[in-house]
């Protein structure tokens, strides 16, 4: 029942746009729907990265704990975005905390299952990797822009 509805909803997510339906169906075998309440933690810095998420609704904040005890948000992802790339890169460990800031619905993929399917069929692996690389590239570009602190006061 769950898998059936996922094969219907997954192709609508931008991450899977243009994917072979057979591949989506294959990967759907690793997926399940999840629901997060405001302030619910999705994962913590340093924990093993065991999942990959497609956000369907709501918003997740990526945050770094600060020495003062608080934390600052360094990025947010929301409907149409993906959460997490650490599941794909050894040593498969989260680099940030992820926390829902509002009611959030997402699809969670089991990382081990996903990696196994990517390895078993290089075509599937390549398709997934290309998408993830594209997202990483875009985020890196945005991060570099923010590093410039373009709205700050320039100091010569």
């Amino acid at each position, binding site marked *: 029942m769950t898998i059936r509805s996922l094969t219907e909803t997954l192709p609508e997510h931008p991450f899977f746009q243009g994917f072979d339906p057979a591949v989506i169906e294959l990967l759907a075998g690793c997926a399940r729907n999840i629901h997060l309440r405001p302030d619910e933690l999705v994962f913590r810095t340093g924990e093993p990265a065991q999942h990959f998420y497609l956000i369907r609704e709501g918003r997740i904040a990526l945050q770094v704990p600060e020495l003062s005890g608080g934390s600052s948000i360094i990025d947010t992802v929301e409907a149409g975005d993906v959460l997490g790339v650490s599941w794909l890169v050894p040593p498969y460990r989260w680099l940030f905390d992820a926390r829902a800031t509002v009611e959030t619905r997402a699809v969670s993929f089991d990382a081990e299952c996903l990696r196994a399917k990517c390895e078993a069929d290089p075509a599937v692996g390549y398709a997934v990797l290309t998408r993830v690389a594209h997202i990483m590239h875009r985020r890196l570009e945005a991060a570099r822009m923010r590093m410039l602190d373009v709205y700050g006061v*320039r*100091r*010569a």
Partner: protein
Amino acid sequence: MTKPGNVARTVMLDGLQELIDALLGRGYTVFGPTVVDGVIDYRPITSVTQLPQGWGDVQDNASYRLRRRDDDAVFAFACGAQSAKPVLFPADELLWRARLGGAEPEIERAVDDKPAPPYAFLGLRSCDLAAIGIHDRVLSSRQFGDTHYALRREDTLIVAVTCTDPAGTCFCVSMDTGPVPRSGFDLAVTELYADGPHRFVVEAGTPRGEELLDQVASTAASDEDLVAAERVGAEAAARMGRVLDGTNLKDLLYDNTESPVWDDVASRCLRCTNCTLVCPTCFCTSITDASDLTGTTAERHRVWDSCFSEEYSYIHGGAVRESGRSRYRQWMTHKLAAWHDQFGSSGCVGCGRCITWCPAAIDITAEVAELRRLAEQRQRPQEARP
């Protein structure tokens, strides 16, 4: 120089004095070349004896020397240390003064202590005449104008001269601005000093000039004088010290913003701004505000500025053009390329002052040639190597 319908006259040195007297009599402040501080420069004059009679100049990279001539010529120098720019477009212009003491500030357009217009220039070279034409376009022909410039310029009368002894830094022929004045003058003078008596062939360019010429003792110019006048102009044209190749110059500059030439010239350029100060067309200015100690009056001045200074491009936090290479590139690209887009002509008149007065001996004509050489080298297909 000779235009149909214009009758050229021949005038002696006494006649030149009569011309000065007539101008003074009409209320002009007459600016003429004179020897001052070891150079020839324009100053208010009242007598032909103040002209640099028997003086010439030797100019080269980073070098200006007066030299004694072996004749009595008064206009036989290449170009003065400055053009008409400091007179018509002063380095410091008081724009207005505000009294802040009362309930409401009172702003008055201020009158400064500059010599009173109208101005007459005696002995202006054609390069400097062309520069005035450019300043007219820049400062007086667009949506907004410099009202102070317009006021000074309005009644300015110009007695131009044919340049008869160009310097090593001259390249007006390349820029098509000289050495013979062709337009923009009230009177044009060609000094004849090599053969026969010391005399001047004078021609009017305006009714005002014509009327003035009538006040001066003269004779109709003989055919020989006319031929001689034409010849000295042609000979001067053949003795240019420099050449600037203007072929596709705009594209060359626009397309080669990353040329190593800019790094090379920046390694020599001191950013002293001399070139922009002596350039007869450079028009960039800044604003300075000042108030008295009690804060009851505020004054605003318009002062010359230079694209070579770091502050020039400063916006909160830093300069847009931080590097020396970008500032030299800006100056040359504006002068020789962007100027065409902005004002329909080059911004360079070929007077060579930027070469003479650059303490680092940077030569705009050589930098253009090097830029071109490197650009062409890069474009040339790789030749087969042995």
